[in-house]
């Protein structure tokens, strides 16, 4: 397995007025291709920030992030958008589906950024929906689906353009036990059967059990915790 994500000396500082908030301190981390990584930590630990940086939603104040050899910390807004479209799939705690579009149209959204024909888009979306087990719900709107089903649509949307990384922020945070384990099983499936690299931020230890590796963050730094992978280097 090769290194997919290389993080060196990563720092993120937020400035709110005159206040300086250092959310991440000099984080160093390697993530292997095909890994299923859980990032855990208390509220305010910076785990979501780290996820956002890895997913290219934000840019670091200092340090570097390289994904599949590409330095994304150096990219401008427009280039980051294009990079995200091709390389990352996001899954959020509150699903963030567009309420006026059907499940299929929601899944097709990332494909609108490609040059695929309408027919090809429809086909790919159908495949993605089948993968998450929602083939017969393709025409339903989010309001007509349960929480678990909505999250599955979100996952289908996240994988439809075959991204390098699957990035999930508290994917089971709003679900009941049953749906949560269904979602985590699905993610595990995508990881083991389809070789997707999955990074999940969660505060639920049970969720972390589905991952291959778990990392803990506290006050912006990685700490020694259960199951640190061989490649992870804790910061000093």
């Amino acid at each position, binding site marked *: 397995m090769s290194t997919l994500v290389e993080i060196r000396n990563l720092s993120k500082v937020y400035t709110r007025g005159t206040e300086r908030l250092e959310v991440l301190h000099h984080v160093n981390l390697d993530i292997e291709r095909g890994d299923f990584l859980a990032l855990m930590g208390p509220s305010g630990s910076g785990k979501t920030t780290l996820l956002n940086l890895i997913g290219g939603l934000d840019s670091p104040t200092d340090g570097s992030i390289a994904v599949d050899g590409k330095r994304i910390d150096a990219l401008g807004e427009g280039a980051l958008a*294009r*990079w995200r479209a*091709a390389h990352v799939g996001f899954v*959020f705690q509150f699903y*963030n589906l567009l*309420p*006026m*579009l059907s499940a299929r149209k929601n899944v097709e959204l*990332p494909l609108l*950024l490609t040059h695929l024909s309408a027919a090809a888009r429809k086909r790919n979306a159908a495949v993605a929906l089948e993968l998450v087990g929602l083939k017969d719900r393709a025409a339903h709107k989010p309001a007509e689906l349960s929480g678990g089903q909505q999250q599955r649509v979100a996952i289908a949307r996240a994988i439809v353009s075959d991204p390098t990384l699957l990035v999930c922020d508290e994917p089971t945070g709003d679900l009941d036990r049953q749906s949560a384990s269904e979602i985590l099983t699905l993610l595990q499936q995508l990881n083991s059967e389809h070789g997707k690299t999955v990074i999940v931020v969660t505060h639920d230890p049970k969720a972390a059990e589905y991952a291959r590796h778990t990392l803990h963050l506290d006050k912006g730094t990685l700490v020694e915790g259960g199951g640190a992978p061989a490649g992870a280097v804790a910061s000093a």
Partner: protein
Amino acid sequence: MKYLHLVWAALLRRRTRTVFTLLSVLAAFLLFGLLDSVHSAFTVGSRDVAGVDRLVTVSKVSFILSLPKSLYERIQAVPGVRAVSYANWFGGIYQDPKNFFPNEAVAPNFLSLYPEWVLPQAERQAFRDTRTGAVVGASLARQFGWKVGDKIPLQATIFPQKDGSNTWTFDLVGIYHASDPKLVSAENLFFFNWDYFDEARQFGNGNIGWYITQVADPREADRVAQKIDDLSFDSDHETKTQSEQAFNVAFVSQFADIGLIVGAIMGAVFFTLILLTGNTMAQAVRERIPELAVLKTIGFSNASVLSLVLAEAVALLLSGAVLGLLLAGVVVAAVRLKMGTALPLDPVGRDIWLQGLALAVVVGLIVGALPALRGMRLRIVDALSGR
């Protein structure tokens, strides 16, 4: 465009709000169509199409003073003049003063100076041959249900007959229509023969109301006009000759600065419209910031988000504009049919549509600009976390 369904879905998000806003836009453009058609009708004579090569000669003192018939040959002799004709205002009433339309006694060759009015040759001949013959415009005929062969009585308000009666009866021998749809407002005229008029009228015999001169070359119009006025200089019937267009402009300007009034009203209307739709758009975008953030997350560029919001605003405005203009067209057609010449209205034609649609796009862009910028500039991380 494949993004079209996103714009459509965005508009349908809150159907009631979209419908209400649409109806407000519709109201604004209905007004636009109606008022523009009024404005158009009033200024029809002063547009380039009509009367470029015709001059009107009236008494310099006042249009109510008549001119001697002897001027006819003298004007004809002026170099640059291709044809001369003459007419008198009659001012008769058909049944009720409310049914006002212009009616004039004209020389036999008068209609030939107006090639933009189409009249079959047979009817032209009938007009020359029938002493009491009359020719009317198609709109007028339609309004009163006149057909060729009808006898039409007019009550004189100025010129009684020699026997003192006010009733003049005419035989309708021809109906003309305007060849150019823009000139359709000119289809409200009633012409009859000058000879019958002069012979039967009680006073003022031998006097002309005004002369119409057709110049051979429109560029020579001013020079010819001057020469015509020189003929009567310092006499007791001094004349003022100007192009028919200038004459109409001066005439209309006496009614009111209609353009100003219409412009002022439309200004107020569109100001309120911009406020209204601007508010709706701002609200709509505010609600959708998280969704727009998701789109950006997926990889939609800033420019795409900007265009999506602008497209939504423009789509809303265009839909309302189209519906409003259609309704205006229907209302104008109905009013013209029912009231005819009592209320002058131009049909809602291509010009009004083009102006209206352009306006819709401009207003849409104005109204969508700020929300679009806000959507474009949102920070994904802040937007997703609800800040």
